[in-house]
């Protein structure tokens, strides 16, 4: 698993995750996502396009990240989840919790529209 954080302008950050987010790797994802709160990130775009497997510990890490951001009014947006991840989100009803976009570009575009 690889995780990379890039801070953009206006309190935005793109978090790119590659590989599998499971019991072995979820702890790191959770730490990195919670760190975003310290930078007062308002919109964290998590690019999941190259996550080939996610389990409940991975989902929990996402929720922890979201909750940390919400403390200062921020949010966490899931971008481009693969069918496996999408199904896991749907079955756990977490698709009602996270804003989900089919691509990162789409999510960024929507965000800038709202800003205007």
């Amino acid at each position, binding site marked *: 698993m690889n995780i990379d954080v890039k801070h953009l302008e206006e309190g935005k950050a793109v978090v790119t995750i590659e590989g599998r987010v499971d019991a072995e790797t979820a702890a790191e994802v959770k730490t990195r996502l919670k760190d975003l709160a310290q930078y007062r990130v308002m919109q964290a775009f998590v690019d999941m396009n190259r996550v080939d497997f996610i389990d409940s510990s991975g989902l*929990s890490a996402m929720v922890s990240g979201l909750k940390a951001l919400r403390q200062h009014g921020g949010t966490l947006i899931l971008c481009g989840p693969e069918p496996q991840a999408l199904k896991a989100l749907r079955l756990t009803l977490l698709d009602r919790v996270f804003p989900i976009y089919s691509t990162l570009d789409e999510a960024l575009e929507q965000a800038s529209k709202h800003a205007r």
Partner: protein
Amino acid sequence: MPVTIRVLTEELRDIWHSWTGGQLYIIDQAHIFPNAAGIPAEILAESNEEDLYQTPKLGKDLWWKLRVRPGWSLIASAEDDTPYKRVLPSWAALLRMVLEQEATGVGEMVDGSILKRMITTMCTAQDVRSGLQAAQAVIQQACTGADVLLIAEHSGELLLLGQGTFSEKEARACLKHGIEASSDLKSSTHSIEPFVLRLDVPSPSRVAVVVQVCDSDGDVKEARLMELCRLLGLMLKPFFSLEVDEQQQRLTHDLALAAAIQSSLFPDTMPIIQGYDLAADLLPARQVGGDFFDVCISGDGRYVLAVGDVAGKGASASILTAVVHAVLHSESPRHKDPASLLETINAGLYPDLDRAETFVTMTVAFLNPDEHQLEYASAGHVDGMLWKAREETLSMLPATGLPLGIYPSSTYAASKAVLEPGDVLGLYTDGITEAEGLNDKLLGVQGLADLLFACHLAPARAQLDVVLTALEVHRRDKLQRDDVALLLCRCLDVENDPRWVKPFVVAAHPTSVHTIVNLVRDLAMEAEGVLEVECPEVFEDFALALAEVIANQIKHAYQQEGGRIQGRLVLDKNTLSADTFDYGSSFQPVVPLGDLDPEDPPEGGYGMQLIDALTDRWAYTAMPGGRNHWSLQKRITGVRCS
């Protein structure tokens, strides 16, 4: 790529001898390329003049030395990760080629006269540097790509000229090592200054090493030559094992030969018995051991399955396994029941065992595959196991007499059992049940029984691999202390055996979750062509559900403290299922209600939800004896089970 060989002639040996006065070998280096096709073992057997042993490891290469016959040797290198088993037959083939080439004179040979010219050139030069340059010219002229190492002494200067695959760094290290080890030279007034010159000769990397040894007045004395020779020997030691280690190496070599002979005594393939599936394996704790298994035929045509243990370990025990093997094979055809077979073997072995102050335990089971009858007798051996598939119970096959070698005449009882479809007979040695794990906890008879219970549906070989892996997981980082032998015989259940069974055992560690996910994916790939309906999603869903169970076992049952998880994955006519077992804390599975507050989602507890949603049935049972059992099922349509 082909194997490249250059052979140096006897002529060089004479030159060598005249220069050093010492007894040195003539060396050729050759590269071995693993022969993927494999070379028949009989070639190795034919080359019975060889003296094969491994020299110390240098850098990333493994160096092999082969003394073809007194007087000259071969050295070859292979990549570090080349399996031993592959290098060995390659060597045998190489040896044969060398011998053939020498006999016929065919092939590229390095002319001894060129080497002679080289040495002469070097030694008539003004100084070592110009000598090397001149020698280089000779090599280039005769550039055959030969790998050679030359050593010459000139005016108190010792000269090593080598071309080979060893690096400059290795040559330097080797040189320093030799000098430091030579305390005699250290205490003398000689100044020794090693340095390394790299020659610019076309490939491969060629290295020349020069050592200057001068005393204060620059004179070269007769006695110095002997010192030089000794130094030479020390320097060369890492490259070519000289007489110093001969005895140790001979022992190592003998042990390796003994291991090869011992393993050749045991069947390397199991007989194919209609309606049965057999597998057996042997893992000595050292190179050779006292455990054994065997298969032969009895006087009334039944299969004799034998597993035994000579008390003690290592070489002494291994010698006796050979004796037992011989007696078992000679006596089996003369006996029609296991009890009288053991009685005869005991009487035959008693004098030897008594003298050696040791004993042997052994179970012999006579299998009649047509009538599915098993008759066994056990000379004080650990209880055999018989898994009864229909009853889902395990019955033990206890000893029916004393170990062999206790009394000159012992009597044995025979006991019978019926093998029904799906039943598994397990004969083993105490190296399995007495394997020590964390806090010296033994795997135990129950531990082995649990493993057989978890994977009894699988082919015998797969079950056996699970048991051997389980031993590694159980031992953690501890060394294997005792020999291990295991023989499994499964009665096939043609009508009901599932199409695919993948047994597994993993350490309760987060990385194992992915191992299990991959196991499900492997199954999906294997089943691909046989599924009438395309349903890759079913496998991915199931992989996630099973991953959740495994993660649960790691995190909750074992509280992250590690342990063993074992089970099986089964794909049958219309069901994909998994059973997995752990020895951790019991669990209260609760599936959260299908409701979630989007404003305050919980930071965990999604696992049970996924397991529930992704399977058609799941069950958790806390079994007696502190074992937990999870089972998952998912219906799958369109599996062709032909």
